[in-house]
């Protein structure tokens, strides 16, 4: 068809001899040279053509023409100068680059010609790529990236564990034994606490503080960049108290970069000398945010418990995780007999857990699920764009055929289509990165305490991921139209274009398959979102076991320096409660070590006198609250049997109140009142059950069972407690007065975490709300895209078949029958997709199990409802094109042919 082109692409004759090789080499050299000096080459060509034309004009004038006629004739015989230059340029070395630029420009022109298509496609792809990228960047930071500490795979947490599901902190006895006896760790350290009261500079302030033993910074692998970390021995009682600051706290309290080393700050009433400042960006270590890291000084233990230390270890390079397990096991064995009198649980072992697993927890599963969901949305989007492109390619068969007949080679056309698709994908990718950027901010800002969020960013790895997704996307949706657009037999295309192309049948099948796939992808998304929504709603309607209205809670902490013993602390609490209850707007007040619905405070082990566990077996463990007499009254927890704790209960005789779940679990069909138990491994004085109250959620709203024991606060003398105040009217009205009441007792005491109980309940469901909203949004987008997809395909079909339908109607077909035909075409595809989606959902929703509450992953009602909804959406989307089909005017249609 185009001898020029054909010759160019035929292989050059085999070079023979050194001369030939030389000249071939010269050719290559020239080509290379030209590639690098394009402008000069262009100028030379101009000059050459100029010379040619001038000579030709001279020749013609010499033959007797006047100059005007000569110039015109010369130009005509030469042919279009622009076209010649173009063709000559194609012969240059930079042919490929040149053509690529031209292809892209051509593609951009093509997209500009159909802006609505371009915008729809770019937005669809942008949303898909953006959402996928945003979620991926979170997955990457939280799950995939190693922890931001040197050789973080050697970091472990050390727990006490007595069953696969029950682990807790370690005690001073445990930690000191591990420190002295272990053989597998380079270093070990322990952390305590979470807050401290900062005094001495203006108002007293609760700041986040983690007390750490000497080896802490060496263990985690982050040392202060100014000053030093802790020295060995500084964690012994009597040594000078030292503290390391976070850079952010230094900036806040002293000013950016202030020289603070050697200065003293007062924490919990004790002066601490500042010895170091951590590098910027280390606001939290091992998942614990902290303003300050004071030294933790541990006294020798007098018994095995209490268990309040978080143990950490850095494995020796040559030690394996299994070695650690064996070594800690041996330590557990050795120390058990020493404390057996007060702690008889032989199953409890010191157990290592990789720090990474502790920090990431079960979030990993949920995140991967979410990534799967967005990938599903992206695939639906790709299917849609592919469909649009197929429809467009169908409409362009004629253009392609025409251009092919005008001499464009097949490769050229293929290249151009590819350029269009890649350009489209690139635009989508760019939009996607922008969307990911915004989306990520939102995701991080609204996240309910996802771990490691401070590490989330759109880093090069993530952008690489986005680019890979974009390219794959372009190739994926580009493939089908590519094959379609360049029909092998151009003549067929020319003849058939604009009507039902014979080759079209195959492509119709591809498009139908795409619609089926969209529905198959949309259904699991919708079912997943509905299941989460269902459990979220159930969770919001869970009865917390108390009346949350007009209730405020706050945290209070007395410094050990001023309130050394139980007597002083108790005097303070009693006086504080008395003053608060005297406030006119206050109905009642109480204090507790626990705070419902999700802070169970401490847990304690106990043994029933009439049903003791076998010797060496683990005792029962339940949430254990130490409460003031007014606490249960303030919460308005119903009393079911016996009586509540009151002022008389001061430790002798020892009494407790239990929850209904506790009674049902340990004395299912017996009288509970009067039963006795030993608590905390004690075997001296038993405690007697004097009352049963309603269940209160203490371990989260989703807990199914709420056994709890309430012990009088009287003798315990806790310094950190939760204050609960019930207002007569609005809860917010009395806040300031409560604060003033406390301040009148001790001006150095700040109230921390002051919240209304309704706020607390709302926070308690923020996690489920987050996952539900995210999956809900993705599912919604997926549904919308699938609906658009089936609508588009059907509309296209109807347009394509206008002629056939016109003939049918002319021949007397019933419009209703025509409508049914179109509906059937659409619905058969949707139904197949929904069927496949149902199977997929059954397999996939199991992954949601951990996130669900009160609803099974294969809940039949949800499955049925969602299937119906999706079917209805499909029907709705098919209906419009079907109606249009019956409105076809046969006469006009046939005339249009």
């Amino acid at each position, binding site marked *: 068809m185009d001898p*020029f082109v054909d010759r160019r692409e035929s292989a050059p004759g085999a070079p023979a001899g050194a*001369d030939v090789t030389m*000249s071939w080499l010269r050719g290559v050299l*020239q080509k290379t040279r030209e590639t690098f000096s394009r402008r000069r080459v262009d100028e030379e060509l101009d000059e*050459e053509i100029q010379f040619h034309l001038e000579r030709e004009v001279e020749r013609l004038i010499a033959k007797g023409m006047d100059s005007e006629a000569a110039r015109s004739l010369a130009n005509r015989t030469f*042919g279009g*100068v622009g076209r010649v230059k173009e063709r000559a340029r*194609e012969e240059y070395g930079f042919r490929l680059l040149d053509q690529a630029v031209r292809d892209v420009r051509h593609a951009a022109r093509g997209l500009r010609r159909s802006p609505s298509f371009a915008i729809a496609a770019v937005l669809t792809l942008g949303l898909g790529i953006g959402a996928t990228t945003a979620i991926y960047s979170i997955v990457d930071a939280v799950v995939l990236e190693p922890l931001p500490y040197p050789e973080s795979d050697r970091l472990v947490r050390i727990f006490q564990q007595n069953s696969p599901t029950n682990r807790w902190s370690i005690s001073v006895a445990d930690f000191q034994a591990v420190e002295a006896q272990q053989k597998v760790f380079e270093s070990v350290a322990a952390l305590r606490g979470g807050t401290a009261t900062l005094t001495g500079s203006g108002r007293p302030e609760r700041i986040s503080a983690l007390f750490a033993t000497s080896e802490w910074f060496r263990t985690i692998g982050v040392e202060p960049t100014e000053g030093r970390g802790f020295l060995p021995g500084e964690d012994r009682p009597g040594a000078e108290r030292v503290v390391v600051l976070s850079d952010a706290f230094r900036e806040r309290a002293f000013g950016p970069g202030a020289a603070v080393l050697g200065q003293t700050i007062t924490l919990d009433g004790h002066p601490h000398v500042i010895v170091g400042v951590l590098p910027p960006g280390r606001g939290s270590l091992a998942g614990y945010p902290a303003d300050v890291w004071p030294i933790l000084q541990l006294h020798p233990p007098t018994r095995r418990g209490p268990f309040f230390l978080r143990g950490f270890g850095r494995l020796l390079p040559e030690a394996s995780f299994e070695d650690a397990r064996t070594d800690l096991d041996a330590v557990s064995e050795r120390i058990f007999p020493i404390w057996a009198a007060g702690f008889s649980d032989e199953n409890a072992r010191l157990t290592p857990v990789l720090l990474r697993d502790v920090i990431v927890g079960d979030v990993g599963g949920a995140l991967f699920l979410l990534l799967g969901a967005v990938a599903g949305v992206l695939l639906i989007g790709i299917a849609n764009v592919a469909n649009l492109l197929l429809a467009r390619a169908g409409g362009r068969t004629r253009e392609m055929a025409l251009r092919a007949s005008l001499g464009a080679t097949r490769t050229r056309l293929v290249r151009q289509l590819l350029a269009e698709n890649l350009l489209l994908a690139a635009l989508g990718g760019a939009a996607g990165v922008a969307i990911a950027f915004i989306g990520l901010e939102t995701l991080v800002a609204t996240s309910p305490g996802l771990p490691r969020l401070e590490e989330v960013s759109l880093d090069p790895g993530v952008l690489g991921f986005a680019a890979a997704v974009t390219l794959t996307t372009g190739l994926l949706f580009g493939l089908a139209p590519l094959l379609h657009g360049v029909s092998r037999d151009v003549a067929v295309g020319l003849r058939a274009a604009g009507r039902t192309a014979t080759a079209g049948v195959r492509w119709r099948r591809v498009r139908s398959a795409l619609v089926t796939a969209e529905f198959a992808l949309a259904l699991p998304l919708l079912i997943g979102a509905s299941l989460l929504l269902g459990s979220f709603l159930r969770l919001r309607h869970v009865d917390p076991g108390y009346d949350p209205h007009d209730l405020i809670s706050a945290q209070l902490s007395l410094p050990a320096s001023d309130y050394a013993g139980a007597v002083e602390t108790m005097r303070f609490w009693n006086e504080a409660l008395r003053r608060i209850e005297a406030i006119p707007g206050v109905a009642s007040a109480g204090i507790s070590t626990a705070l419902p619905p999700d802070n169970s405070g401490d847990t304690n082990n106990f043994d029933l006198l009439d049903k003791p566990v076998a010797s060496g077996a683990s005792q029962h463990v339940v949430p254990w609250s130490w409460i003031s007499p007014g606490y249960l009254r303030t919460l308005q927890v119903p009393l079911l049997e016996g009586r509540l704790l009151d002022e008389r209960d001061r430790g002798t005789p020892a009494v407790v109140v239990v929850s209904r779940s506790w009674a049902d679990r340990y004395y299912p069909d017996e009288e509970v009142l009067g039963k006795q138990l030993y608590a905390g491994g004690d075997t001296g004085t038993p405690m007697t059950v004097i009352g049963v109250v309603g269940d209160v959620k203490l371990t989260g709203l989703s807990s199914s069972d709420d056994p709890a024991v309430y012990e009088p606060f009287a003798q315990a003398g806790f310094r950190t407690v939760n204050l609960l105040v019930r207002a007569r009217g609005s809860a917010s009205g009395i806040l300031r007065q409560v604060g003033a009441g406390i301040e009148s007792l001790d001006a150095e005491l700040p109230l921390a975490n002051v919240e209304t109980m309704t706020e607390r309940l709302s926070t308690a469901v923020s996690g489920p709300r987050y996952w539900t909203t995210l999956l809900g949004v993705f599912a919604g987008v997926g549904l919308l895209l699938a609906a658009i997809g089936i609508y588009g395909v059907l509309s296209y079909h109807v347009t394509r078949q206008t002629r056939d339908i016109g003939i049918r109607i002319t021949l007397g077909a019933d419009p209703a029958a025509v409508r049914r035909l179109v509906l059937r075409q659409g619905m058969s595809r949707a139904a197949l997709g929904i069927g496949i989606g149902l199977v997929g959902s059954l397999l996939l929703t199991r992954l949601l199990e951990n996130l669900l509450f009160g609803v099974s992953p294969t809940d039949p009602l949800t499955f049925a409802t969602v299937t119906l909804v999706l079917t209805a959406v499909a029907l709705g989307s098919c209906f419009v094109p079907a109606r249009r089909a019956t409105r076809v005017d046969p006469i006009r249609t046939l005339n249009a042919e």
Partner: protein
Amino acid sequence: MSILRSELLRGTLDLLVLKTLTLEPMHGWGISQRIRQMSGEVFEINQGSLYPALRRLQRKGWVTSEWRTTDHNRRARYYTLTPAGRAQLGEEERQWTLSSTAVNRLLELRLART
């Protein structure tokens, strides 16, 4: 008819250019004039298409070019046949003769029948 002739011409343009250059190095306009004259004014070639052809031949290493001053003291680009070009010309001439002989024979045969 006119299309046919043009196609024949295009296909053989490379051959003609190479042939023209066997005598001496020439510039583009000179080549076009020589082809016109040599063919007895039968081939009124599209002069513009000469330049892409020259680039192509250069790329394949069959001709080289350099800027020289013409007899009339003007700058022009002169093309020279390379040994590889000469070898290629021989090959193409052989091909041409072969196919044209074949075509001629066919044509004579058909004439004989009628």
